[in-house]
């Protein structure tokens, strides 16, 4: 696909905001979802719209999902945006953008997402050899191709290059601004009104960078992310199920293995360690290596030694 020029994209067809808009801002705790929402709400209010901004942030500080509905129109009733009526979805984290994708207005909604991934510990739970990471597999090129208008950019990378990764949200706001028929100076005034004084300059630059951002090439591979899925196919996945054997005669019951087994396969039984959850064993050898009495061996089924 041919990259769009800035004029073609940014100036040509701003979203008609005369009748108002529904904007959904999503991310995870601590990313600045509420700052973008506040900026949008203040902007709309200054344009004479009635504005409602609704957020859920109960578990936000615990790395959970954060989402904020911003609605503005001549008259706004519901504080939340019905599914399929989101005019613009701003995602501060890639998988969060995908979570809310179905809320976009079919055939018209604009999708703007940071391609950076914040992989939750939950996604790295599978321990067995070759286990895949439980993170969204859809690529930016794939998603941008699916929606009416999609912009997937490494906003965190852009903000980091400008001097502060935390301004990634303002980069995305800048990208959205190109879709709305308001003067850049008005946006800058709104941002200046809500960010702390010391961060005004970085936010000004981040906004401009986002507004001027042009997709390098829509079908390119995703940019490098903070944590990517493991490399294809491990070189040597050991064959056979791991089998732990404990010699009770040698075990003195020090509980080192039961305490340190990452999968909690071992428990104390009658004063000595015993394998009580053999199916959970990943064959990591930690118990074998740490046993001060050489009472434990870990072998693979069908493998001698």
């Amino acid at each position, binding site marked *: 696909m041919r990259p769009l020029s800035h004029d073609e994209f940014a100036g040509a067809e701003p979203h008609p905001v005369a009748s108002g808009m529904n904007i959904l801002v999503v991310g995870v705790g601590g990313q600045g979802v509420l700052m973008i929402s506040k900026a949008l709400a203040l902007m709309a209010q200054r344009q004479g719209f009635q504005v409602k901004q609704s957020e859920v942030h109960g578990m936000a500080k615990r790395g959970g999902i954060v989402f904020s509905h911003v609605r503005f129109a001549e008259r706004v009733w519901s504080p939340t945006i019905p599914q399929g009526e989101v005019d613009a979805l701003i995602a501060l984290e890639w998988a969060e953008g995908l979570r809310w994708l179905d809320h976009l207005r079919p055939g018209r909604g604009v999708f703007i997402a940071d391609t950076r991934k914040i992989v939750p510990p939950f996604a790295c739970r599978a321990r067995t050899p070759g286990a895949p990471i439980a993170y969204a597999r859809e690529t930016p090129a794939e998603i941008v191709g699916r929606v009416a208008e999609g912009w997937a950019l490494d906003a965190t990378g852009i903000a980091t290059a400008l001097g502060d990764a935390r301004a990634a949200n303002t980069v995305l706001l800048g990208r959205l601004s190109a879709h709305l028929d308001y003067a850049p100076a008005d946006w800058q005034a709104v941002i200046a009104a809500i960010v702390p004084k010391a961060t005004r300059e970085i936010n000004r630059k981040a906004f401009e960078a986002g507004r001027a951002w042009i997709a390098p090439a829509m079908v390119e591979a995703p940019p490098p992310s903070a944590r990517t899925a493991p490399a294809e196919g491990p*070189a040597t996945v050991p064959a056979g199920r791991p089998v732990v054997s404990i010699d009770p005669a040698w075990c003195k019951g020090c509980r080192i293995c039961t305490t340190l087994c990452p999968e909690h396969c071992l428990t104390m039984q009658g004063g000595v360690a015993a394998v009580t959850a053999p199916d959970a064993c990943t064959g990591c050898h930690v118990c074998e290596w740490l046993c001060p009495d050489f009472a434990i061996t870990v072998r693979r089924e069908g493998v001698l030694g």
Partner: protein
Amino acid sequence: MLAAADDAEEKAAATFPLTGNEAIARGAWEAGIKVAAAYPGTPSTEILENLATYDPADLTAQWSINEKVALDTAIGASFAGVRSLAAMKHVGLNVAADSLMSFSYIGAHGGLVLVVCDDPGIHSSQNEQDTRLFCRFAGVPVLEPADAQEALDFTRAAFEISETFQTPVIVRGTTRLSHTRSVVTVGERSVPPSRGFVNDASRTVTIPANARRLHPKVISREAALADYLETSALTVREDGDTRFGIVTSGIAYLYVKEVVPEASVLKLAGAYPLPEQTIRDFAASVGRLIVVEELEPALEDAIRAMGLPCEGKSLFPRIGELSVELLRTGLADAGLIAAPERVASHGIAPMARPPVLCSGCPHTASFLALRSIGAHVAGDIGCYTLAAIEPLRSMDTCVCMGASIGNAIGLAKAGTDKPVVATIGDSTFLHSGIPPLIDAVYNKANITVVVLDNHITAMTGGQDHPGTGRNLRGEPAPKVDTEALCRAIGIDWVRTVDPYEIGRVIQTLREAVAHRGVSVVIASRPCVLDPVKIKGAPMAVREDGCVACQSCMNLGCPSLGWSGALFEGRNKVRIDETTCIGCTLCAQVCPSDCIQPVGV
């Protein structure tokens, strides 16, 4: 980037955007309250935090040790003849219920408003009980604002009603009201003259003889309030399409207006008491009568009891948050509107992202240690309830605030094959953990209590409490000494440990569970977020040393993830330096000693 409250220009104007909670605080301030008290609880927390931003000369705003004390404080102020407010989340009202039920008989002297914020959809609670049913049970009128403007206006009106009808008034919000921001026209503060001390023991002392005389007054008050609501501006009738009419209240009204703006609507002030004649007249003016309300059929049951046929919960769910989508579906099912268009799905399975304990959270180590000693763990309410899920999975029960210690007593008395441990946070311990701890000593229960002391009320966003040494306004305050308190109630075995020393925590817990009787372990270490964000030198994994055992991943630390490299086909681990705070817990559990501070 942080959003600073740097909108001085907005504050100068007579209208500015407020959340529901900010508007309630503003309304209470405008109504001239002198005393406000609360225990933090999502989504109600910001009400008192906002009241504390007003001039201390105008009002006292304070964190109470629990919701009952907050309501008792407000009741005391009412006895003194001034206006007062208590705020809490829905389950907080259970704690304060004893006071509410009796004060309903006594009635308000100075205006008393109790703000209760429900959590339909259970965004951050242990249930979604509907406070409107409680109001009817207590015989206390309820006002349900729909948006921030009404939050302010209804709060002001609630004080007038409270004094006119000598009743406490409940202003009932929901998460959506509390945390939705919209433009509000504000007013000025006007302080009514103090009514002076109530000085009427026949009313304010609830001995049986008095209570028997007071109860009929509650019944007649109900009738008087219903009469008032027949003509009050709080009851709004909008005549439109007469094929069907919708009876609703609170935030549900907004969804109704979004979906059927032309419908005939009767918007009630709240679910109790009800203006029966107004409802009868409205019902007579429309074809089918539809009741739209979130959660329980409070309005529907009452309207049906009037002998009026109506439809409600047969069309809309009795659980979870109401929404535009649910309303459309329900009205379409009833044949009243066209079926909503189905939005085609992109078919992307949402990724699981459960909330987790923060990087460096001191609770992490306490629960990792608890898992290793193999005890039955009775938990409590706080961030640490997250230890119930993988990978820590070391909490067996969590009922409600302060339940852990009593539950542990019962477990121990029933007899179990494992040691019994109760875990409770510092704020929850002060809220409702002390009486059960005394009970455990008195009844010689063989339990260990772990006080997870992170020196703050963390779950609700970092509020002070009597153990932090500061009050709601940030001023220095007396500080509870938990260890001394335990000794004073007769516990000999009390140890304080630093949860960052995981070996010592395990050792201490083993000794504690071996002790016969009540033992207390205080795991003391400040929260990494509040009152100050803690960030130390980050750790890094020496990749050639990592054998992918994933012992560190059992911490559930959000800074730990897979590196992309493999060892024997299993994923090696990498630490995100930007979020790691350097607590060293992962290094302490690493059997191959390959986690070190960055740069070593």
